């Protein structure tokens, strides 16, 4: 229902590996900002993230004649980027620090603007519960529901079994549901105490 002007990724990739220079620019324009966003959630060091994006594209460029057709370009780039970033981060572990927010979910200012009090309280509770999950679980949720990658792609990106990815998502939501069942009571209690 919303329009995007994006062309077919796989075709762009094909053009790129057969030597089309313009498609390198297109892939960069499309994916560098996305990888940057993802990187910032993995590591706090922005210059490391930028180095990693640069190296990834330089690698693709110099090895493009040896690269093969890719079905899901996004999944391919995210996987390569994550692997490189983790490797580079271990290499200079000394300065390495994790971002405070990581893959936390947020209640955006816009949501706060247009939601009523009880919806907002619930949203905050959901955020609190989701954000308390282990980092890898939160990363899976981000890749699945923000980046719109399939369980299969996520398994390849994070180097785990597809079944484990599925289980992580299932567990995360199961836990959330149990926590939320108690929520109305918790809210009422809080309200009474506050009164």
């Amino acid at each position, binding site marked *: 229902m919303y329009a995007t002007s994006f062309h077919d990724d796989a075709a762009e990739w094909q053009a790129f590996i057969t030597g089309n220079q313009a498609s390198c620019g297109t892939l960069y324009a499309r994916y560098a900002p996305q990888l940057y966003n993802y990187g910032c959630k993995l590591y706090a060091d922005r210059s490391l993230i930028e180095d990693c994006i640069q190296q990834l594209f330089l690698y693709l460029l110099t090895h493009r004649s040896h690269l093969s057709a890719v079905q899901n370009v996004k999944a391919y780039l995210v996987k390569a980027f994550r692997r490189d970033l983790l490797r580079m981060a271990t290499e200079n572990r000394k300065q390495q620090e994790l971002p405070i927010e990581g893959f936390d979910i947020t209640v955006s200012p816009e*949501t706060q603007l247009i939601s009523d009090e009880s919806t907002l309280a619930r949203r905050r509770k959901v955020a609190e519960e989701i954000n308390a999950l282990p980092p890898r679980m939160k990363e899976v949720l981000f890749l699945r529901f923000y980046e719109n990658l399939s369980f299969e792609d996520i398994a390849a990106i994070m180097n785990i079994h597809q079944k484990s990815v599925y289980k992580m998502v299932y567990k995360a939501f199961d836990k959330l549901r149990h926590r939320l069942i108690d929520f109305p009571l918790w809210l009422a209690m809080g309200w009474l105490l506050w009164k």
Partner: protein
Amino acid sequence: MEWKDYADYRQEDFLTDDYFSEWVLRPNKENNAFWEEWQQLYPTRQPIITEARKILLSLEYTREEMPVESYDRIWSVIAEEMETTTPVRKRRWPMALAAAMATGIVAVAALWLFRSKTIPPVYTSQFGENRTLILPDSSKVILGPHSTLRLGSFKEIREVWLEGEAYFNVQHTAVTAVPFIVHAGSLDIEVLGTTFNVQNYTGNTQVVLSSGKIALRRQKERLIMKPGDLVEYKEKEEKYIRREVQPERYASWVKGTLVFEDASLETVAAQVYHQFGIRLVFRDSSLAKEKFSATLTTADQAVVLAAIKEAFSLELTPGADSTYIFTRK
């Protein structure tokens, strides 16, 4: 997909189901129809669906924007590398000729190498960001949000390729008329010193001429525009729409004002997406076709959302991934 498959799904089963999350996060006519019908068939399961939807729509993330300087710096490194790794095209000439014209080839190669030192840049803007660019011929371009402008060599011909929206102020070349061509969608816009706005966010290319004279070309067709003309080329129907407008309204985004003139909500959604990176979803498909007119000065996304909500008295629900869902009351 069978209806009965979902009959004994629990909340977690829905949340891990691809087709379900597709509907919640990226609704379309087809999946909307399915899930609405399903809910009518299984009214007792409705609360579970509603709850699962709410949870998915709670998954909002902050987006870290890549600084423009970093973006440009990395791109220039890549572009330089692109030059050095481009295979030298010696093999195109037969060996005999190459031997015979050895000196000539050296000269040609040197020339070619020299030429290729100038890397045609690609300029990109992010959501909600306008960039002012000065082209090699000192023409000025204001690049709209979430747009890409790729430059040609600017030697015999001045050529640019646009995806998104841009306002052009093209420099008239004094000595010899060097043509300036904007490629947008399947249109080529041929220019001789003039100001105009081009937009192709929706796939259709729309050109509004402020001053001067331009010619639109598509394959063998040629169409001359005069100031105040708006021409829109519909890619799917392969036809032109032409009407007279106030051109300054179409360039108002340059100054941060958003103007919608009898625009369908679908078109508004496309523009708002590129402007702010948020997606508007209209639950009711007839709603997407409704016409919206408004001039919004100092338009931020809250203003735009509120304006649409008020204009049609709709309900507005925020979704995950910066999605906003409009439903009729």
